[in-house]
């Protein structure tokens, strides 16, 4: 067998192309220390999920103050409204990508919007730092330009179920879920987790978010099925209404477990006392003792007279993370790789990322309602029996 040596035409062409590309890279200005970091914040500022967009904006504004105090390159950001609609998200993504004005994107919030926008960001190789899109497909679709802060639906569902079964000792679960990508995703994974944990889902009911307000028939369905734990896979409005209506129907004292979409004061108000003793497993603990968290919480309360939601905290942490890494010499091209290799301590706690861009080794903070207020319990989820699912 003869081995080809010397320069072939194809080889020469490759070398030529390679040197042109290298020259292009060298000519490209290296991200200078002191140059501003330009962020596009994509969130639903209008429409059904506008409250999440508002929280994202406030989180960004809160982060800007912390960034200014920390020094280093300045950060500028522009808000792009995706209205919580996939079509708008795709337009927003093209607009951001086409302008060439941004180093990175923080967003989107709704999973469906992130899924619609990602093919475009991926084509343009724009780094995407996603806060709250929890659908597992976001990091399972093969895009290598995204990392996210929130804990995936499938992992979350396992944790909520394990808490109800192992920590609270409840074996008969009734699942209430919002029939959207979030609630439905949780419900599907919860069914699998319940099975692995040896628990039984005795009843389940879906509702249309922002439309259904009467849960009385679901309450009686859950009561008749002999539910020992209510698993609420929905946001605070419906979660609170459901508990309030259950109380009116005389169904009280049933263990309740839900995600941090319930972590709003309105949940307690709407439940009319029935939220007392219910558990919320949050991806971050707003009542944690850490100085960073407390400083952020008091600053946020002072500025907006409101508790920051998960979206606000993640947006703020993403801004600070991007700023830290860019100040340390990351470029838009290397940012995602650098994030995956770093450990970041933010308001929401400590984050690490895996190769897909999901956070790893994150644990849920267990928060309860005590005397009409949210309070941290300091408890940890007992994960016995979850090994089979990993």
């Amino acid at each position, binding site marked *: 067998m003869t081995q080809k040596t010397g320069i072939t035409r194809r080889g020469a062409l490759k070398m030529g192309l390679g040197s042109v590309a290298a020259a292009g890279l060298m000519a490209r200005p290296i991200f200078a220390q002191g140059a501003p970091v330009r962020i596009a914040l994509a969130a639903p500022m209008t429409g059904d999920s506008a409250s999440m967009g508002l929280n994202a904006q406030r989180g960004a504004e809160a982060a800007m103050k912390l960034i200014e105090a920390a020094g280093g390159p300045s950060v500028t950001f522009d808000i792009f409204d995706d209205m919580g609609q996939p079509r708008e998200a795709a337009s927003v993504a*093209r607009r951001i990508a086409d302008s060439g004005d941004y180093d990175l994107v923080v967003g989107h919030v709704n999973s469906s919007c992130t899924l619609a926008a990602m093919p475009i960001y991926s084509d343009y190789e724009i780094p995407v730092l996603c806060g709250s899109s929890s659908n597992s497909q976001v990091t399972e679709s093969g895009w290598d330009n995204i990392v996210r802060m929130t804990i995936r639906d499938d992992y979350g569902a396992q944790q909520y179920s394990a808490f109800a079964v192992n920590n609270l000792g409840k074996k008969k679960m009734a699942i209430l879920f919002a029939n959207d990508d979030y609630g439905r995703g949780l419900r599907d994974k919860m069914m699998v987790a319940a099975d692995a944990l040896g628990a039984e889902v005795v009843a389940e009911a879906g509702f249309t978010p922002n439309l259904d307000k009467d849960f009385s028939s679901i309450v009686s369905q859950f009561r008749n099925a002999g539910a020992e734990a209510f698993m609420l896979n929905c946001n605070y409005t419906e979660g609170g209404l459901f508990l309030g209506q259950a109380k009116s129907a005389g169904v009280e004292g049933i263990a309740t477990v839900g995600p941090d979409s319930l972590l709003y004061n309105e949940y307690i108000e709407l439940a009319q006392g029935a939220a007392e003793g219910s558990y919320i497993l949050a991806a971050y603990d707003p009542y944690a003792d850490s100085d960073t968290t407390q400083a952020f919480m008091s600053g946020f309360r002072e500025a907006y007279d409101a508790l920051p939601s998960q979206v606000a905290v993640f947006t703020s942490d993403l801004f600070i993370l991007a700023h830290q890494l860019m100040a340390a010499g990351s470029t838009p091209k290397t940012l995602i790789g650098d994030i995956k290799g770093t450990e970041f301590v933010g308001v929401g706690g400590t984050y690490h990322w895996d190769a897909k861009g999901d956070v790893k080794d994150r644990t849920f903070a267990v928060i309860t309602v005590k005397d009409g207020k949210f309070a941290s319990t300091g408890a940890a989820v007992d994960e016995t029996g979850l090994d089979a699912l990993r």
Partner: protein
Amino acid sequence: MAMTETFRTPFTVKFGPWLFLILMACLPLVLPGRFWLHIFSLTMIYAIFVLGQNVVTGWAGMLTLGQAAFVGMGAYASVLLTMQAGLSWPLAFLASGVICAACGAALALPCLRVKADFLSLVTIAFNQIFFMVANNWMELTRGPMGIPGVPSMQILGWKARSSSDQFWLILGVAAILFFLVARLMHGQLGRTMKMIRDDEVAAGALGVNVTGYKVLAFAIGCGVCGLGGSLYGHYMRFVSPDMFKLEESLLIMQMAILGGLASMPGCALGAFLMIMIPEALRSSEPWLITIRPGVAGATLVALMIWRPNGLLGFGQMPRSIRRLLRLEKEARP
């Protein structure tokens, strides 16, 4: 004298569409960046939806408010046929048109028992039913999670990857659909539909099969929307039930009204304005973000006051413009 004069098609009508097509085809060469190309691609896709709406509402005079259901049906059919059944995109595209035309005809039958406002209600209900089915039939549609990773449009091995490729492909499909529908609507079929629209009783008395033509209008209109839906799904590369809610039907109807019912150029103009106005207003300014969703509605209210037949509704077009376009002869002294 006037009676013996032969009618000659005005040159604006004869060559205008071709000129427009050539200008549109040149857009990717002159537009800066890919964002505006995306907006024009989206406009053309919506113009196809409006065309479908116009066949039913503009020419046949039936006020339907559920076209998004057919758009969604076309999108889901095409996406599932390519991804699950392994069909090539052109076949899935044609199949989605046929499926939607058949469903449109099937929906027409109960619809024809009701008139005017009630017809709107039936079609609104149909839109809701479609949304509920798409949202809950997990095994087929993946429900509210939607279907990500939809392949791009592909014809005989050629894949529309870049924005310009997609733009030209959509332009080609839109041009063919507009040409075909224009041939139908300016011919015997369209004239009969208009006749039914203007006076159903008189048309029936003259022996026109009113029911048959109405069912046909539904089939054509919904079929066109289904074809547009196939383009939409493969262009967005993601489908979810949220994209085909009642609001989307209302948007398509608004576009049809804005452009002018029963007007071919009106379909394109309505879609263009209703896509372009919100895009032009897209900004980071908080006050602009707040008022943006309301601007389209305000435009429509203004239009209803000053131009109730739409911008290009024939009867409403100012005489000076009609003369300029040689659609009407100079008034003789």
